[in-house]
């Protein structure tokens, strides 16, 4: 008897398949919008970056100066002004450089020539060091140079955009 019905689906199998199928479908229908909600931050388009006035170009010196500026910030439903800091100076080639003070090791705040670190940026958290160009010094914890702000100069005024990573070294 069982040989005849070999390629037939038994009632039990049929019920198993349909219940698993329907159950799976219902489960997926329930869970997928929830997962969608959870991953929404990954789907958001990146906000375009505005440029903010920071200082006059004529004031930029060879010596890095610490400048603060505010950027309008949108965090979901919460809008605020975010305070940002940049180390701004002219390099030896007379180019303008505006560095983010956020250490590329674990995100502490670096300082120019603090303690006895002449001509270097120094991070006190784990003794991270960067040379004058903000490039991380080998054998200290940071793994990449300090990010540099995009900048624009208009009518003698310096505007800063977003800090961009400058490749690992």
């Amino acid at each position, binding site marked *: 008897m069982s040989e005849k019905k070999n390629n037939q689906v038994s009632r039990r199998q049929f019920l198993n398949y349909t219940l698993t199928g329907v159950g799976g479908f219902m489960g997926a229908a329930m869970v997928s919008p929830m997962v969608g909600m*959870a*991953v929404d*931050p*990954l789907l958001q388009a*990146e906000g375009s970056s505005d440029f903010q006035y920071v200082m006059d170009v004529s004031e930029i010196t060879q010596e890095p100066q610490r400048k603060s500026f505010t950027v309008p*910030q949108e*965090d*979901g*439903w*919460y809008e*605020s002004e*975010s305070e940002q800091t940049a180390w701004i100076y002219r390099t030896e080639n007379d180019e303008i450089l505006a560095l983010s003070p956020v250490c590329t090791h*674990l*995100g*502490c705040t670096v300082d120019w020539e603090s303690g006895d670190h002449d001509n270097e940026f120094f991070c006190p958290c784990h003794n991270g060091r960067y040379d004058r160009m903000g490039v991380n010094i080998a054998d200290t914890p940071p793994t990449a140079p300090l990010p540099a702000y995009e900048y624009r100069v208009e009518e003698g005024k310096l505007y800063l955009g977003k800090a961009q990573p400058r490749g690992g070294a």
Partner: protein
Amino acid sequence: MLQKLYDWVDERLDITPIWRDIADHEVPEHVNPAHHFSAFVYCFGGLTFFVTVIQVLSGMFLTMYYVPDIENAFASVEYLQSQVAHGQIVRGMHHWGASVVIVMIFLHTLRVFFQGAYKKPRELNWVVGVLLFFVMFGLGFTGYLLPWDNKAFFATQVGLEIAESVPVIGTDIKTLLAGDPEIVGAQTLTRFFAIHVFFLPAALFGLMAAHFIMIRRQGISGPL
């Protein structure tokens, strides 16, 4: 009175076998500190559970006052800590318990490791134990942000940078945790709160159930 009540229920529902099956077991001599004092090492699992119960209960009561909103979170914690009757004690239990539970789970893991109690047939329970360890760390990490003070903010900043340092998917992990690729803010706090108070405790309960059911099926290992 109580006996009568119990008998009344038992007569109808036969509940004696249920609690007998859970509670009525002999403690083997080699895990009983009254026999060999060195057997106190077997207590760390139970102590982990005990502190976990404190965490769950104290946490439930903290949520009566706490709000996961960046404008009000700090003030709500300060209020419950300084104005609410016994709030300081309940917050203290949760605050110190969070560290004690990690110490206990660590000591328990050391005992299992050095006694080789994870060997066949208990490999699966070791795996569940490691998952419990991760869930505990997750609870500690997400809970730490909730008071929304400077220490909380910067510790989370650093924790997220660590997550971001994962190759290839690091930035996505960070965004998923923080709710934003760059900002540690309003969306981070609500997410961490949800994870801390709903998602991880749910995982914790499931894993603990699996842990204890396996212990009952397999018994305690040893003596050495």
